[in-house]
């Protein structure tokens, strides 16, 4: 379980880094999105990997999942979602203003 989670985070982060380094703005947006998924999973894992437990103190159950990372992930998801939307709008405006989706706003290498 831990290995699977760590592997998923690694693949997401690696793919995201590769895409974020590409020169097209849409690839960059996708890359940032994948990286934020990786980060969200990482925060989730910071509360230890616990399966089948409620994130609440329950006298009957023999343990609980840490609720705080879940709250943090929720905040991070909301912020990341808003940022991605803003980044997409900016990328579209830059594409309109420059006539190209190159992140330098110019096709020619400077």
């Amino acid at each position, binding site marked *: 379980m831990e290995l699977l989670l760590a592997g998923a985070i690694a693949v997401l982060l690696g793919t995201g880094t590769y895409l974020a380094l590409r020169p097209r703005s849409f690839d960059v947006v996708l890359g*940032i999105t994948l*990286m934020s998924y990786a*980060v969200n999973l990482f925060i989730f*894992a910071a509360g230890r990997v616990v399966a089948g437990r409620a994130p609440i103190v329950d006298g009957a159950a023999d343990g609980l999942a840490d609720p705080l990372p879940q709250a943090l992930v929720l905040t991070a998801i909301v*912020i990341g979602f808003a940022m991605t939307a*803003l*980044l997409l709008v*900016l*990328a579209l405006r830059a594409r309109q*203003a420059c006539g190209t989706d190159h992140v330098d706003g110019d096709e020619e290498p400077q």
Partner: protein
Amino acid sequence: MNHAPVLPIVIPALAAALMLLDRRVAVQRALAWGSLLLLVLAAGWLLAATSHGWRGIYLVGNWAAPWGVVLVADRLSALMVAVTTLLAGLALAASRTGWDTRGQHFHPLLQIQLMGLNGAFLTGDLFNLFVFFEVLLIASYGLLVHGDGRERMVAGLRFVTLNLLGSSLFLVAAAILYGVTGTLNLADLSLRLASGDVAASALARAGAWLLLVVFCLKAAILPLSAWLPGTYGAASAPVLVLFAVMTKVGLYAILRVFTLSFGNESGPLAGAAFPWIAAFGAASFAAATTCALAGVDLRRLTSMLVIASAGLLLIGIGLATPATVAAALYYLVHTTFSAAAMFLVVDLVSRTRGSALDRLDATASARQPALVGGLFLVAAAAMAGLPPFGGFIGKAMLLQATLPASGAGAGSAGWIWAAVFAGSLFGLLALSRAGSTLFWKSEGDFAAADAGSGATHGNLRATEAGSPAEPLQARDWAPVVVVLGLVAAVSVGAAPLQRYVQAAAEDLLQPAALIDATLRTRPMPGPHTPAPETRR
């Protein structure tokens, strides 16, 4: 409970919400000035209260400290809130020239940025610090592209991408620290790290270094400073006034987190980062002032000097003695105001030279060379740190504090003196060269420059600069005079300000009292308050 610590966050949040109800600029301006007045009162209250050593611990959800989010107002927080409030007033005054009508939502965005800045200065919780960073960044994205145009969109795209990467790193660091210690409260973090075993402290160290990288990115320290000139080169003048404090947020975060959470009380991690902080600061100061020599226009030159000032502040923070930190805090106040003055002067230069804008060539002289040149002279002297301005006093305080005789930082004085003197000389040279090119060597008038180079340089900022035939009016140059007055006040009022920052620096380097006050504050009793809990 004293509600003063929460006011600087609540006032701009409410003002921004009210502004969205009525989009007329006149109404928004009135609300903005009203909000500013209340903020000045709140900041004054905080300054007056903290100057006697009071620490405002505010339990936001009425939960005791390690469980709920807590706001902490001490001397440093109050000082930063006061500086931000004054800059906000200057940005509002500078936007009176019509900037706030060149696009929508200038005033609400400004208020939200103020809320984020004040929140970042007042919070005592690591994740809450992240949230307030995001609040101020979201507003700054909007303000950066305010006015529209190709240059701003490309700069905005890069700035947002870079800060999203920075935010991801911040989250990873916060998650690591939470995973290791089980707390996000900055004060509690310090105690947990002190009692943690060595196996945990390797991971904790990784978290600490990641946080340092994130804060250095925000503060534009040398390897992570390449974003700043392009971003600041595209923003409009009133926005730049407020951006003068943006890099200081990163420096504040370094100072707060690395003195409180990873400070003297936190066992194996205590002070581990400080030598690196000082070395990167010195390298950043020397390199950025050298780059300023190669500046092609006044705006980029000023941006490089802003990076340089952040580097100088980092030297003071990294040496981590009360005297050096006090020198850094004094210099911080001075350099924030003088950078704002310089950015406003750059705007005046751009507007009076036709399409030559602020390029450093002699093709056009300013329309009102005496007025613009005089303001440039004073602002440049302040920026370069010449006496009688505060920059000189701040650097002298820093150099004096590194003398072997003072006991602190012995052995490191040599390379710090070399970096500070070389950097200051280069900064002075860059500014003198810019001034003599712009105001002495320039031959053609602005009309000739328009005829000669108007076609190639007829870009966005040239059209925004307006017709150079219109002479500058009082409302154009009055904000510069006001901010230069503030710079002079920092210099004239050096003694009381120095006493204040000295006390603030001593508080920072002795975090035990703050940790104790944070964790001992009990919730207000109420009908739904749970019974007082004992600590874990």
